[in-house]
């Protein structure tokens, strides 16, 4: 069910049109270690924003664009300098892929790729455990404030045992007694059903216009 009304701000469609990282899963997973190191700061900023804004997709668009841009830059440089070693590594990765895609099965091709990246991009492969460990990030962006949570108003207590309704008050949840075989009861039932025919058939029921319960 749609819960976004016109008062909820959604960004314009033009703001969401950015040059995307048009690659499939395999190149992304194959180059993930080097890519993660190349775009480490942008990734950390984006994930920090994502965490602090309680996973609001509208709030982290700028950081997301920075992440995609950095990824594009990385693959541009790879294509310019390191195309062949990367292609060999990617072929090995793709052909030996299973339910668990392990870079360990392609070490022979990974060596030249790592050397090429070290030579042209000037970065070493991150050490084992680099991405698994918790990494701290110091950001210049101030922490977004969490809106305050107002406590619901307290209902004053009443001694409900002393309060009684006047006799003859109709029960709002009682329509009629279907087991009442007397003529009066049956007449009452038939009349109620006649008056509330629309309400008992759910297909075309439209509730009457009233004030909202907010």
């Amino acid at each position, binding site marked *: *069910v*749609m*819960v*976004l*009304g*016109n*008062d*909820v701000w*959604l*960004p314009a*469609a033009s703001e*969401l049109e*950015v040059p*995307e*990282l048009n690659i499939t899963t395999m190149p*992304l*997973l194959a180059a*993930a*270690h080097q*890519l*993660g190191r190349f*775009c480490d700061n*942008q*990734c950390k900023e*984006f*994930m920090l924003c*994502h965490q602090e804004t309680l*996973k*609001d*997709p*509208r709030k*982290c*668009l700028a*950081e*997301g*664009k920075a*992440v*995609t841009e950095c*990824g594009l830059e990385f693959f541009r440089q790879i294509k310019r300098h390191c195309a062949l070693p990367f292609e060999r590594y990617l072929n090995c990765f793709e052909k030996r892929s299973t339910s*668990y*895609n*392990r*870079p*360990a099965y392609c070490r022979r091709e990974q060596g030249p790729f790592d050397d090429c990246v070290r030579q042209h991009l000037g970065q070493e492969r991150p050490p*084992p*455990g*680099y*991405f*698994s460990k918790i990494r701290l990030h110091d950001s210049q962006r101030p922490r977004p404030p969490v*809106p*305050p*949570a*107002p406590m619901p108003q307290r209902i004053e207590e009443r001694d409900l045992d002393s309060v009684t309704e006047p006799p003859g008050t109709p029960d709002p949840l009682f329509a009629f007694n279907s087991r009442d075989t007397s003529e009066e009861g049956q007449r009452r039932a038939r009349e109620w059903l006649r008056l509330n025919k629309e309400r008992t058939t759910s297909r075309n029921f*439209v*509730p009457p*216009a*009233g004030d*909202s*319960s*907010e």
Partner: protein
Amino acid sequence: MDSHPGGFKQEMPPKGGFKPIDFVRKQIKRPWRGHLLIAGTYLWTYAGITLWITPQRQRYYYQKQEAQEVRIAAWPFVLAERNRLYLKHLIKLRDAESELMKDVPDWKVGHWFSTPIFHNPRGLWIDPLLYGFYALNSKKDYKYRRFFHHYFV
């Protein structure tokens, strides 16, 4: 046989008589290699554990961790793109809803006839339910997504 009358040979003591009986208590001869064998077993086990099996297991667990790290490193790129696509689809849904219900009286977009769906005093972000998110898709698409976990992990 002719030399054995009666057909059997009589058992007699050997020539020179029996040797004297040695009744003094003596120690049992134990094989002196036994300790070495046990010690060798322990040493071989220790060497195998430290030099072979432990690095083998570490390599296996490291390979698993590396595969997981690949996904951790690639996640921000996927998430950024996914959020953008998600917002594009939400815009499309909201526009479609306002267009569809513009002639219906007392209908507010994102509400049920002027009643809000969720109580949200803080104005937090709420995702629409799956059924509404797939409003512009076929029932088959919705079922494919709803029971995705039946076929994929």
